[in-house]
């Protein structure tokens, strides 16, 4: 490959979790003006933004203006792991966050992935990587941490530019031999990202036992779309010197001791708890069905008689067993399941044998029950092509589910779909639509690829579809398609999905059991407290480079007897582990309450950032009717006694009412509850009634930078104050 620009640097070693330098790569503005810079990391940056998503948000804030759009050269992709990222003693420590302005939501987005990229980036000398500008041709950005050199290469890859092909090619290209491939990580998208807002970023690691590159996705928000828009085919990093002390921890012995304890828990209890090692997150399939939480046919229903066909045992049989499947060294939870060689039956690679990563639960449900398909082989194939083409499987699943319902309702028809019959469960035509999206084959597939929010606009504009009905049934918030849980029977989870920073993604809060089943959140104040604590606790993982799964998808043997109620759900011993390993890496002395404050600071900064981008107010926290309850009669009639009971709880006697009247009454009642929830949550978070952090809040958190204060002073209205 032709070198377009290169730059030599002296890598700084990581000490106490930080190299204290970030890498800036500028691609110019279609003019070949490539730039490289090392930028220092200040004490204030570390104290206030910690790392990972926090660093990403601060660097992006400094890079863009309120007028910057997702496809502006100013927009950046910032990738950062955080201080704990890269340790090998504790499971789930290879995560990184990618932060960018999203084409889907037109505000900040942060998307996490495993794989080796962030740890290798840190060990190559950088706490974060900023990519700005647009290249004048298709390029690859290569960071060689071994040599201390950054290069921009003309991609020179002819033919297949999809993720598996590109990743395999680059592992081969940059490695000196087979053994060296594991020292490389590649970030790529795929051909769909060129015209879809669902473009995902695939982060690789090399699997020496299977002798293939594996992909983990920063799937959501359109990061792959931004990457392709910048003219970047792939990013790659190489670093061969990785040890258990590469982060430069202050106290390696404590890391080993705490890590050993959790590895033992996983070994002893995973098989009777979440079975992450044998099935991964797909263990949730039948559980979600049992609790009416599995999205079926665009979230209309919560269970299906064909659940046996997608039971986790069906996936276990299809996943290779007994293989170490961690996506970073030392992760004994090993949830990154993969199939044995799987023969594709459609598309450009038809007939080829491939290793498919996943499906995880979200994909098994989104590209399964939610589109009315109960066939693991179909879902595995759809999963493969989505990753390969660079499409987020969650947005794809939820978006396709919306398309199918529109089709069944007659809002769109075969004349619009290019002849495809898109009823729920039509495996052949739904798969064909995925291929057409990848190709940008026709107007319809290009509209679908822009996401549910734009589908509503364009189906109405071009096909005359009923906008009001589509607003009711499209499960999107802030422009992002919901992930794969049916939330309508949990008021707290309405907030967990639709009162989030970036849209309905489950990584802020998953409160359904706590609220709907355990009945631990009876009042709106209780729900608001949970919607304060859990989003902030979970955000902390994104600051330091950790995976959330080892927090509560494995628990100490006595957690359920030693602690009660919400305390047990917090898994206190694991929270203490996190305090201890953070202190052991950084040499600091934080306590568990500090974790929440660290997160709250970044949470509020991100909220202010979205305000700066013209979003971030109450009007942007939309919640569709389907998220609150039944919309059509068949949904009500699937559980008539249950919903009649809900009406009675609301003080309405259902006797004598038609199903239509019942739905209207319950929806009106729940819409009122939604507004109550919004007020309580905003107040608990230290925001005003319009969802804007108050000056008191940002001052308390120490993020009262002049531009933050100036923005808030212009935005906060006295009439919106709570008191």
């Amino acid at each position: 490959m032709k070198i377009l620009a290169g730059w030599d640097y002296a890598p700084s070693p990581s000490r106490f979790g930080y190299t204290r330098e970030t890498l800036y790569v500028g691609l110019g503005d279609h003019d070949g003006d490539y730039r490289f810079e090392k930028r220092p990391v200040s004490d204030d940056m570390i104290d206030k933004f910690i790392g990972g998503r926090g660093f990403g948000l601060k660097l992006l804030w400094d890079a863009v203006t309120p007028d910057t759009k997702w496809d502006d050269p100013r927009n950046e992709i910032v990738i950062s792991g955080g201080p704990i990222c890269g340790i090998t003693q504790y499971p789930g420590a290879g995560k990184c966050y990618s932060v960018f302005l999203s084409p889907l939501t037109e505000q900040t987005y942060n998307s996490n992935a495993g794989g080796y990229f962030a740890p290798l980036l840190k060990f190559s000398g950088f706490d974060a990587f900023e990519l700005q500008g647009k290249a004048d041709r298709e390029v690859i950005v290569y960071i060689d941490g071994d040599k201390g050199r950054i290069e921009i290469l003309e991609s020179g890859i002819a033919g297949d530019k999809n993720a598996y092909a590109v990743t395999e090619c680059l592992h081969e290209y940059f490695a000196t031999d087979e053994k060296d491939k594991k020292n490389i990580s590649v970030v790529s998208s795929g051909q769909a990202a060129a015209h879809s807002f669902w473009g995902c970023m695939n982060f690789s690691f090399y699997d020496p036992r299977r002798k293939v590159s594996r992909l983990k996705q920063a799937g959501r928000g359109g990061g792959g779309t931004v990457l392709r828009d910048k003219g970047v085919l792939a990013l790659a990093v190489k670093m061969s010197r990785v040890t258990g002390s590469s982060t430069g921890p202050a106290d390696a012995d404590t890391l080993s001791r705490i890590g050993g304890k959790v590895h033992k828990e996983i070994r002893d209890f995973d098989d009777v708890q979440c079975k992450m090692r044998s099935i991964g997150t797909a263990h949730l399939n039948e559980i979600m069905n049992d609790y009416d939480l599995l999205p079926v046919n665009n979230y209309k229903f919560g269970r299906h008689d064909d659940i046996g066909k997608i039971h986790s045992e069906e996936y276990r049989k299809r996943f290779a067993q007994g293989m170490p499947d961690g996506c970073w060294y030392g992760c004994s939870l090993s949830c990154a399941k993969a199939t044995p060689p799987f023969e594709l039956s459609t598309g450009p690679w038809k007939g080829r044998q491939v290793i498919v990563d996943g499906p995880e639960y979200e994909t098994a449900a989104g590209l399964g029950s939610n589109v009315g398909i109960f066939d693991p082989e179909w879902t595995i194939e759809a999963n493969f092509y989505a990753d390969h083409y660079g499409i987020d499987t969650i947005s794809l699943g939820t978006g396709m589910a919306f398309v199918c319902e529109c089709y069944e309702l007659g809002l769109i028809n075969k004349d619009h779909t290019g002849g495809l019959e898109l009823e729920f469960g039509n495996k052949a035509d739904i798969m064909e639509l995925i291929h057409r999206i990848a190709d940008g084959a026709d107007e319809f597939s290009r509209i679908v690829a822009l996401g549910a929010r734009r589908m509503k606009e364009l189906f109405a504009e071009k096909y005359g579809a009923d906008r009001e009905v589509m607003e009711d049934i499209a499960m999107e918030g802030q422009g992002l398609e919901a992930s794969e849980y049916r939330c309508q029977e949990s008021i707290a989870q309405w907030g967990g999905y639709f009162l989030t920073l970036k849209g309905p993604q489950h990584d802020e809060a998953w409160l359904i059991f706590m609220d709907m089943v355990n009945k631990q959140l009876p009042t709106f104040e209780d729900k608001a407290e949970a919607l304060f604590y859990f989003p902030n606790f979970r955000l902390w993982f994104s600051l330091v480079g950790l995976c959330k799964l080892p927090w509560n998808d494995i628990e100490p043997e006595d957690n359920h007897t030693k602690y009660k109620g919400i305390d047990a759900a917090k898994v206190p011993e694991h929270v203490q582990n996190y305090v201890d390993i953070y202190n052991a890496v950084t040499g600091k002395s934080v306590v568990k309450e500090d974790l929440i404050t660290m997160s709250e600071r970044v949470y509020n900064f991100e909220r202010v950032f979205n305000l700066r981008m013209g979003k971030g107010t109450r009007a942007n926290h939309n919640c569709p009717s389907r998220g609150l309850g039944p919309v059509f009669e068949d949904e009500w009639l699937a559980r008539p006694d249950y919903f009649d009971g809900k009406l009675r709880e609301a003080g309405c006697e259902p006797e004598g009412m038609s199903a239509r009247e019942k739905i209207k009454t319950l929806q009106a009642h729940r819409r009122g509850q939604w507004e109550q929830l919004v007020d309580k949550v905003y107040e608990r978070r230290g925001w005003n009634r319009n969802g804007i952090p108050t000056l008191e809040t940002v001052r308390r958190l120490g993020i009262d930078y002049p531009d933050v204060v100036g923005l808030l002073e212009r935005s906060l209205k006295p009439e919106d104050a709570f008191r």
Partner: protein
Amino acid sequence: MITVNGEEFGWREGLTVQDILDAKNYTFRMLSVWINGGPVQSREAYAATLVPDGAEVEVIHMISGG
């Protein structure tokens, strides 16, 4: 009569924790069961743990998900 997570539940002689889980279709594996403020010590003991009449039973599903 007993309560399970605050809701009334019919009691009968010989009612066990496992009977309650089966009736409620609580199939999630990571449960914490408390009876009258005290924990059931082992998940393996659910089938053998009798629930007394009038008991307040809490079946807490650990958060998981996501």
